[in-house]
């Protein structure tokens, strides 16, 4: 078998274009996928015009003033603002392509918010002007600005609720308030009730004033109870929900590590499938297969040689690739032996699938095309999120993904790359079983070789 391996390596060495296509191209594609997935998206450029005059961005609410201009910074979490001095300048920025959109805050926005706070009626509105013809880009900008506006809304609501709760507490308990630059002492419902109860006690039992005051005390009791209940309720509405996340089972691999695993396994798949299918089909297009199986090499040994050649080359290439990518994304080097195992077993399974394809094709070009056509859907099926499809289709996709090596290879690689992930035992067993199944199918396909 070593002479066949040596021969195939010699052929590869003398086929730089083929090696380039088989190895460099998928690796380049995989690296692009990896970096695209592991890099955060850029902030869209948005022209921003704030028409509210300086110092006019305050609204009065209860005993306090809220400066809504101080919340403008929350608009810029997800966008890169280009500040302009007029509405026309903002629109011009969009028209000449300097900005993907324009966000215009009207001069009367403080009044609009003030009206809403005081009356509960109204719909404060900012203007968004989009000029993107690309629907995906438009959606991207839309989502970025909607997300930022939501942050501003939350911050303002929280502040308004804080003021409301504070004022309610003062109505209940009294205290010092500032009004028109002067400090006033507010009595508060509780103290008022105490004073009233003291006054009632000093009055004759059958005094008509005492009867009237007891009604006021009854009202004060109800108000104290009601407002005492309202304050924590308002406080709880003003506090955003927090999420306590607990992972029961499955992947705990970080997203960027998972993205690298996808890139590495896509490369492993391309290189192994194309090499295994192509090198087996080469024996047919060079008419050497019948000569070899005349007692020189058994068909099973020939298949083993092609699988090992493809798996070995692809595993070596993808190991180098993973080491290179680890300069940008954290991969757990202490699990390096698991990297090797994951890529070796993945390579064997893809190699077996490759020789099954090569056994069906008559020529190298046909085998390569078939391998390429098979690669894309099996990767796609394995990467479709479970939540993205309905129950019946999900079952079908799960079965298809189970029958091909991409999913277990990806699981093995992502677990191997991440120190916080579980072991890779089960994916390796799965890959080994697929290797045997596809090798068996390849052996059946080789019978057609001999007959043709």
């Amino acid at each position, binding site marked *: 078998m070593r*002479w*066949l391996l040596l*021969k195939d390596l*010699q*052929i590869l060495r*003398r*086929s730089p274009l083929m090696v380039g296509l088989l190895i460099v191209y998928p690796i380049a594609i995989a690296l692009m996928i990896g970096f695209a997935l592991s890099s955060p998206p850029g902030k869209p450029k948005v022209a921003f015009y704030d028409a509210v005059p300086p110092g006019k961005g305050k609204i009065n609410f209860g005993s306090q003033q809220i400066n809504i201009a101080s919340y403008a910074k929350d608009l810029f979490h997800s966008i890169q603002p280009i500040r302009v001095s007029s509405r026309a300048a903002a629109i011009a920025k969009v028209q000449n392509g300097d900005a993907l959109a324009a966000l215009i805050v009207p001069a009367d926005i403080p009044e609009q918010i003030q009206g809403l706070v005081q009356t509960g009626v109204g719909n404060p509105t900012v203007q968004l002007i989009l000029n993107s013809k690309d629907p995906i880009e438009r959606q991207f900008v839309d989502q970025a600005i909607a997300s930022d506006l939501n942050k501003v809304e939350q911050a303002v609501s929280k502040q308004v609720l804080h003021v409301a709760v504070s004022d309610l507490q003062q109505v209940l308990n009294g205290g010092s308030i500032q009004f028109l630059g002067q400090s006033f002492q507010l009595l508060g419902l509780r103290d008022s009730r105490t004073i009233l109860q003291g006054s009632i006690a000093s009055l004759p039992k059958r005094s008509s004033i005492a009867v009237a005051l007891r009604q006021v005390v009854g009202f004060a009791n109800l108000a104290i109870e009601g407002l005492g209940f309202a304050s924590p309720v308002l406080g709880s509405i003003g506090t955003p929900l927090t999420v306590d996340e607990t992972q029961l089972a499955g992947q705990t691999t970080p997203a960027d590590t998972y993205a690298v695993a996808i890139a590495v396994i896509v490369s492993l798949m391309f290189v192994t499938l194309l090499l295994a299918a192509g090198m087996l089909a080469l024996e047919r297009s*060079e*008419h*050497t297969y*019948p*000569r*070899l*199986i*005349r*007692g*020189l*090499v058994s068909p099973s040994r020939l298949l083993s040689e092609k699988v090992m050649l493809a798996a070995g080359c692809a595993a070596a290439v993808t190991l180098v690739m993973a080491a290179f990518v680890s300069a940008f994304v954290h991969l757990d080097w202490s699990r390096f032996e698991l990297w090797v195992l994951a890529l070796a077993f993945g390579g064997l399974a893809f190699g077996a699938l490759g020789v099954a394809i090569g056994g069906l094709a008559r020529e190298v070009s046909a085998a390569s095309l078939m391998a390429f056509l098979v690669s894309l859907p099996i990767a796609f099926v394995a990467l479709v999120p479970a939540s993205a499809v309905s129950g019946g289709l999900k079952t079908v996709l799960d079965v298809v993904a189970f029958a091909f090596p991409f999913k277990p290879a990806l699981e093995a690689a992502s677990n191997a790359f991440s120190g916080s992930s579980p072991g890779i035992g089960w994916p390796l067993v799965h890959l080994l079983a697929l290797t045997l199944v596809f090798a068996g199918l390849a052996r059946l396909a080789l019978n057609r070789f*001999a*007959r043709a």
Partner: protein
Amino acid sequence: MPLTSTGVSTIAQTGAQAATLTASSVTKRFGARTALKGVSFELRAGELIAVIGPNGAGKTTLLSILAGILAPDGGEVTSNPADGRIGWVPQQPALYSKLSVAENLRLFARLERIADPEQSVGRMLAQTGLQERADDEVGRLSGGNQQRVNIAIGLLCDPVALLLDEPSSSLDPRQRERLWEFIGALAGRGTTVVYSTHNVAEAERYADRVLVLGDGELLFSGTPLELEQTVGGAAAGDFEAAFVGFLRDRGH
């Protein structure tokens, strides 16, 4: 020598010369189609035998079974001596076009487990006259030179019999002439040579004996002259006419 109507030959051994390759009632089926029907014959050392017949007669299937590429569904093929190797030269050169002439020879010599591969490579390069092209990639050789390398690989194992499937089909007349000189010399050294061909003139000119196949049956085994005599009449002295008449008389 004409055959019985069952298609089974009744060739007798001539003199003390033993058969180097014997086919006994060889049958091969591909699904419902029977490609070979009980074919029997013996081949002797140094004989040059042409297998001829119309398209689909079973020539390539017969050579593939003799070479051990296909297993017969019935009958058997034996060689003498029992461990004697059979060389096989397929119709299209079975070579790695990216490897040089010497690398191809060396690879197959190693796969054949020949004791001294380098010595065998040197011998084959000398026999085929390709010493000066030893380091050239096979893909850059002419069709004639590729066929010489193809034959050289068939001879690496020093076979008792060499099987060639339409060896001259892709060659020009000059290359063809050189090929037959080479094959004639092989037979002269005692190697049994069996070749299939569509070119009946080559069968008449170079073969000691012809095997005529039709629809998987062995219809005739004898010298070209014997075939002409069997047909007789206007075909006498014209082997091609005799061959066509022979097949027509038997419904082919």
